[in-house]
Each structure stands twice: as C-alpha cells, then as structure tokens.
C-alpha cells in the first residue's frame, strides 16, 4: 500500500522496460527507497538511524566474511589465528578492528533508533508490527554479538560464554542438561566454539531477512514523524529519493567519520584487556564484564540477590533480564495514549528522560564490580526500569492531558518557520 499520490515507476529505457516485464526488481527498489515512496517532509536527524543500522549490518557482513576466510574456529588455534589476522594478513588489522568496532557502532545506532522510537511513539498503532519486528532484530543482534565475542577465544570470550550459558542452568530441574546440550560439553570448549562460529555466520543473514520484513511492515502505513500526526495529503510528504537519500547520505558520512576515528585511533577503547589473554579454563578473571552494550541488562541480572517466593535469586535475575527486553513486545499496548510524539506529552516526557538516565546508571553499574554502592544503585535502577514500563507508563497514558497539536504536518512546519522569522525580526 502507499499513498495515492505516490509516483509510479515508468521505465524509459528499453532494457528497463524489458526487465520490468520479466522481473520488476527496479520497480521494487523504486517503491521501497526511490521516488515512489512518499515520506513526511519534517523528519529530523533521528530518522537517519534506521538506514545507518542497515549500513552497519552491511559493514559487519562484509568484514565478517573476509575475517572468516582467515579465522580458524578451533579452540586450539582460534586465539592465534586472530593474532595471525592482526599481524600477517594484508590489512587484516584493519578488517578485524573494523569488525570489532563495527559491532559497537551497530549497537550505538540501534540504541539511538530505539530511543527515537520510544520518544516519538513510533511503536504505536498503526506501526506496532514494525516495532515488534524491531525487537526481534534487537534480540537477534544480541545473540549474534555475544557469539561473535566468544570467537577470539580470549579470557573474556571464554568466561563470558561460561556466564551466559550459565543462565540456562538456573532453570529448575532441566537447567544443567540444557546447558550441556547447548555447549556440547560440560564447559565451553571446541564444540561450543564451532557451533557459535556457525551460528555467528548464520544469524546476520536472518537479521537481514527480518529487516526486510521490518521495512515491508513500515511501508504499509508509511514513516512516522516528529509530530506524530499522520500524513493527510500530498504536501505533507516528499519523495524518498532524492530528498531522504541525500539526507541519509550526509548521515552516512558522519557515521563513517565517527566509525573511522574509533577504529583507527582507539580501536581497543570499548574492548577489554583480558580478551588479549588466551582462554584459560583454570584461571578466572577478577571481574567478568560483558561488552558495553550489555551492561544495563547485566546490572539487572545482578540486582536480584534475594530468594523470593521459592525462586532463587539467580533465577530471578535471569527472568528479569529477559523480561527487561521481552516487555518491549507489549509496549504498544502498555502505552494507551493516542498521542504519539512526546513533544505533546508533557508528563510522559519527564518520565521518559528519567528512564534514559536510569538506563545510563544501570549501564555504569553493569560495568562496575559487584560491590557497594553499585549493587544498591542497580537495584534502585532496576526498580525504576520495571516500574516505568509496567506501572508508570500505563497510568500516565490515561491521566495525561496532551498539549494542543497542529492539524497537519505542513501546518507544524509552517508554524516553525513563522516562529523562526519572528524570532529573527524581534
């Protein structure tokens, strides 16, 4: 579906006419990201991050395929094969550092993309399916990133695998057998490394598939926008190409600049020193810390220190950590406010910013050792996290009085320009 004023693909060249009759691939591209897709005219820079996440995935796949040509997924040689890439493969150090920091860049843009969705209410009707597929992509990304971090077979790789697969052993009765089945042994070893490599190669293509569904689902209602008001007529929109291809091109340049600065100047900034020590099952690192993008969830996991209601603390932590992500699936129904954008939701805006600060605090606690004051901070932070989504948001979406909203996107744009002019003359 698209808006009635969307342009139709009309091939001029004989070759394209011929192709359009046999396999309308150019038509698909034209309608998806070309002039055939009308988009609200008022998108701000936060709407760049979807395309950037796609670019980050493409970079990960390309660098990853090259790395796989030189990497050996065997517990005996994996660590040295990574160092072989760093030292002996032509530009191997660049490919490896780009892949390593590319994962961080992927999470940075995806977290900003999720931030955008939360602030502007992009998850609400009619775009619930876009949001649900997005959460699926996020889960797949986390699984892929975790398994990728195991592959260099350093100390954090090994002990991270030990801790994460240990979650399954918290399940009563069947936990330990499940863990052994997943690992192919009693502890992470060659069997685990091999299957993690296989899945780490597979999942990015699954992600690419779900991204196609994500974009497909988006194209049915069309893109959201900062006012949260739906498109009413043609003057509210511009064709995706050239307007947003140009804007996304600029966004891509800025993204690549930050990415390159990180990769070439401080490639190990976001990593952990212990992962340059080869895996050693007999020596546990003093602090086992996951990669930065898991810190908030790691803090939630460790916040539960009390056996409550016959469920022991470890299982509470594991359930809570998964629930922290799973509750995002219910967000479109937890927040019943008909107003999408927080620009017009004064009460929601306050609690939303508290949530942002809360997640940052949880992240800091997840990075820090399990001692005070980080334990109590992560407990308080976790309380707010669950309270925000499960209690506060459903209540404020009922009692809040939204601010007056413009009638259309065009009216909002023109009002903004009128304000700018009067401010300039005053």
């Amino acid at each position, binding site marked *: 579906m698209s808006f009635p004023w969307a342009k139709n693909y009309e091939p001029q060249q004989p070759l394209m006419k011929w192709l359009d009759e046999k396999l309308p691939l150019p038509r698909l591209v034209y309608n998806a990201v070309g002039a055939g897709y009308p988009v609200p*005219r*008022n*998108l701000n820079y936060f709407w760049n991050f979807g395309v950037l996440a796609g670019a980050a995935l493409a970079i990960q796949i390309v660098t990853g395929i090259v790395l796989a040509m030189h990497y050996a997924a065997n517990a005996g040689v994996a660590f*040295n094969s990574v*160092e072989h890439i760093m*030292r002996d493969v032509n530009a191997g*150090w*660049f490919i490896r*550092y780009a892949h390593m920091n590319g994962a961080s860049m992927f999470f940075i843009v995806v977290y900003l993309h999720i931030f955008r969705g939360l602030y502007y209410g992009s998850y609400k009707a009619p775009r619930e399916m876009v949001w649900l597929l997005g959460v699926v992509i996020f889960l797949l990304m986390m699984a892929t990133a975790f398994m990728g971090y195991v592959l260099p077979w350093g100390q954090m790789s090994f002990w991270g695998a030990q801790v994460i697969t240990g979650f399954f052993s918290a399940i009563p009765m069947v936990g330990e057998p499940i863990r052994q089945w997943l690992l192919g042994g009693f502890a992470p070893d060659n069997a685990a490394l091999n299957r993690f490599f296989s899945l780490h190669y597979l999942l990015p293509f699954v992600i690419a598939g779900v991204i196609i569904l994500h974009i497909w689902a988006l194209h049915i209602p069309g893109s959201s926008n900062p006012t949260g008001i739906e498109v009413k007529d043609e003057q509210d929109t*511009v064709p995706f190409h*050239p*307007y947003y291809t*140009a*804007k996304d*091109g*600029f966004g*891509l*340049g*800025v993204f*690549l*600049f930050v990415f*390159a*600065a990180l990769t*070439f*100047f401080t490639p190990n900034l976001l990593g952990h*020193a*212990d992962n*340059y*020590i080869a895996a050693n099952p007999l020596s546990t690192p003093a602090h086992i810390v996951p990669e930065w993008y898991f810190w908030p969830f790691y803090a939630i996991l460790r*916040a*539960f*220190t*009390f056996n*409550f*209601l016959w469920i022991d*603390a470890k299982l*509470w932590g594991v359930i*809570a950590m998964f629930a922290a992500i799973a*509750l995002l699936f*219910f967000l479109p*129904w*937890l927040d*019943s406010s008909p107003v999408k954008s927080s620009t017009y939701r004064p009460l929601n805006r306050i609690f939303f910013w508290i949530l942002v600060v809360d997640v940052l605090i949880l992240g800091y606690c997840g990075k820090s050792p399990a*001692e*005070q004051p980080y*334990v*109590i901070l992560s*407990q*308080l932070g*976790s*309380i707010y996290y*669950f*309270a925000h*989504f*499960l*209690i506060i948001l*459903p209540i404020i979406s009922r009692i809040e009085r939204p601010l007056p909203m413009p009638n259309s996107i065009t009216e909002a*744009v*023109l009002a903004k*320009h009128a304000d700018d002019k009067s401010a300039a003359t005053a």
Partner: protein
Amino acid sequence: MVRPLGFLVGLGFIAALVLAIFTTPLKNEPNASHEFHKHPRHLALSSDGLFPHWDKAQLQRGMQVYKEVCSACHSLNLVAFRNIADFGYTEGQVKSFAKSYDNIPSINPDTGEPATRTGLPSDHFPSPYPNEVAARAANNNALPPDLSLITKAREGGKDYVYSLLTGYQNPPKNLPKELQPGTGLHFNPYFANLNLAMAKPLNDGQVTFADGSKNDVEHMARDVTAFLVWTAEPNLVKRVWTGWAVLLFIAIFTTLTYLSYRNIWADKKH
C-alpha cells in the same frame, strides 16, 4: 488484559528488588590491599597519540633488554624474527640475528627424532621452556606469561608494564602481616595482589647498549616497554596514519553529501 498483568509482573519484580535491597549489606567487605595498591605511572612514548612514530633506536635497545633479561623466562610466541626489520635492521642483519638462535625446535627429517636447528627469519622467537610444566617447575610453580601482547592484555597497558618493572621496593612498615610477601614472592605496589612471583628483573647497568645509552633500571624499563608496545601491535603507527588518510577522505565525502543535501532541500521547508 496486558496492562493488569503487566502491573502484577512489575509489582513482583519490584517486591523481589525491595527485599534484595534490605537484605544486602551496605558496607563492602574491607579489602586492605586497596590501600597499598598504586595506580600505574604514565610513560610517554613516541608511538603515543595521534602523530606517532617508532623510535627505532629505542626499539632496538628494548629488544636487547628482552633478549638478555626477559627471555630467560618469558616467551614471545607471536613475534617472528623477520618482524624486527620494522625497526631498521637490514635483511642480512635479520638473517644473522635469526641464525644466532640455535635452539629452534624441529624434527630430524632422516630419523624423525626431535632435534634443534638454527633460526630462519620466518621462525618465531623460541620459548625458554619446552612446555608449561617445565616453566612452572623452574619458577616456583608460577607461569611466566608470554609477552607478545602484554601491553594490550593488562589494564593500564604500557604504563602498567613500565610501573611494574620499576616498582619493586621493600614492603611498607605498616603492611598487615597477611599482605606481606610469602616465600618466593616479591612486593610491588603496582601488582594487583601486591606480591608477585617474579623477582626484580632489572638492575642498574645490567645491559650494555652499543649506542652508549643510559642503562639504569628507569631507562631499561622504558626501552623494553617501548619494545613490548611494538610486539603487541606492530601495525600501530601505520594504523594511525592510515586513519588520517581515511578521515580526510570521509571529511571530503561528508562535505559533498552535506552540500547536495542542502541543495536538494533548498526549496522545501521542513
């Protein structure tokens, strides 16, 4: 249905967390070693920062320190003899350096018996011990770590390695008994446990440099740390300068995309 259920689930998590808060002691267990532990001292090297270069003379001296002192116990598995051409040795010098090692493990092709041979440029620095058991047996059951990646594999990096090498001292008078170095251990405030198995490795005048450079502990520690920064990442200098070229390219690309973005949107209010 979602909202009431969510409300109950939320209350469940919050109850578990509130109970956790009240049952977790607010004071950490006292850890006396924190008090005596020191943060590493900063070491400035020519390979630091955004405009790095290798100080080749320093790397040569550092390698000499490694060869004459560290290599008695520590391996350097990831570094090949051919790599030392990076800091100014000619092909002939690399060959004769490799040849000076006559203990490269190999197999006698005629008999299949284990044997040794002289080094080739493609060989890696040989390990001082045949395996971990032998290494531990010779070192009071401690295992001397491989040094190839040591400046990347420790918190504090090069600063830590340099501080550790220069940080040996007598234990302070007020050091509690349980933190005193035990048999075969040596006090060093830069080491996480305060006491480590490695004895003070460097002493003034231990290595004589051909270029007449100072050979007190301080200078030898700087030189060998510089060398270990190189062994950890021989491509470090190339990496940073490649980064400048890439950033310049991306800056031009981004400027052009910005200008075309402004141009395309010039007639559209947004």
